[in-house]
């Protein structure tokens, strides 16, 4: 029995959105599957890079955002190095993640990382334990980053607010 052939129509609005977020290069993809074959993350999960690229090309939002596939990419660039069409695969993944996040789809541990950035200007927490560790090694207790200068931290906060990041992770 031949399999049923289903006609699908690309969703141009999603394709355009992906392009707007920096994933335009996906249009070069000719679906060879080299990326999937190269992907270390796909060996452990259901994530299939080629399929995700197809979803981006055709605007299949449901496929792109189904499950946690999109978030299994480690951004290792192995696929991108080998892609015969020079598709900027990681940019495409990042573009689709940006869209998902803008729609409120995010994982709590990631949100926490984002909140750390808003609170202290770094992506990991900092407290007395770390201060002591630094002092014991003969380093300044507080590193000379935004952590040591309120004005610098305020500047960073303004940038995060101006680009809507605080609301995103708020």
């Amino acid at each position, binding site marked *: 029995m031949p399999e049923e052939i289903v006609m699908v129509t690309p969703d141009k609005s999603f394709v355009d959105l992906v392009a707007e977020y920096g994933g335009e290069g996906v249009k070069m993809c000719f679906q060879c599957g080299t990326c999937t074959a190269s992907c270390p*993350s796909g060996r452990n999960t259901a994530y299939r890079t080629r399929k995700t690229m197809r979803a981006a090309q055709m605007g299949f939002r449901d496929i792109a955002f189904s499950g946690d596939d999109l978030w299994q990419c480690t951004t290792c660039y192995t696929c991108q190095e080998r892609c015969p069409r020079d598709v900027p695969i990681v940019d495409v993944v990042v*573009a689709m993640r940006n869209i998902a996040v803008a729609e409120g789809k995010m994982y709590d541990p990631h949100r926490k990382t984002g909140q750390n950035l808003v609170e202290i*200007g770094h992506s990991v927490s900092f407290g007395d334990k770390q201060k002591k560790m630094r002092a014991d090694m003969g380093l300044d207790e507080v590193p000379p980053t935004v952590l040591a200068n309120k004005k610098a931290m305020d500047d960073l906060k303004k940038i995060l607010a101006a680009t809507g990041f605080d609301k995103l992770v708020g």
Partner: protein
Amino acid sequence: MAKKYAFFLGCIAPLRYPGLEKSTRVVCKALGIELVDLKDASCCPAPGVIRSFSKKTWLAAAARNLALAEKEGLEILTICNGCYGSLFDAAHELAEDKELLKEVNGVLKEIGMEYKGTTKVRHFAEVLYKDVGIEAIKKKITKPVDYKVAAFYGCHFLKPSGIKGLDNPENPHILEDLIAATGAEAMPRAQASLCCGAGGGLRAAFPDNAMKLTKTNLENIKESGAKYIVDICPFCHLQFDIGQKDSGYSFPVLHLSQLYGVAMGMDAKELGFSAHQTPVKL
């Protein structure tokens, strides 16, 4: 020639493994590299989670860091592949795309800053290899070691190679050469370019998948006969150091700066091994 760079700390080195910061400072000094702290810098921001959340935020905050170095008139030196990935990529995009630079400067204007697009971003390993050179390094090695090690490049040092242009990512030699300068030997292994597992937000949200990648690496490292892991990224460093807990493996994890410190006769205290979870027995 005195070599001077703006030292960009990032997050994981200063806040989780300050020994990496410390050993970089002492090793650079010994090699005649002057590090000027890039004061007021923030997270690069992280190429995994923060860039995945908002490329716009990522680029603007990276541009602020780049502008701080531009003001000092110095190239940035980083000891982290994540910071290197973010800052190098952002600097590249902003140098190539004047419209984008204009847009980003619109944001920086809010804090009275401007980025002209001139900052060069360098990785510690690359600076050692290119600006100091293997022969000059060898002269400073006072206590050569005979360790068999796994050279762990991580992902964002060489890749994307189209813009990094440092080495062939499928068959590189820079790190092996830098390791050989200390007397140590980098053992060839299967899947040598496999990701440590931490990147892209995996460690935080999907630790099972992350750990599978880490374990595959550990198996390959064991097979190769290596007894130590030498990395050039605090995030790979953390993934291997913490990831070996209850794994049955216990390879001491050394950042390249720490290996150099050992081979230059510095003591363990100065190199910050006390912060490691997998004990460093030398």
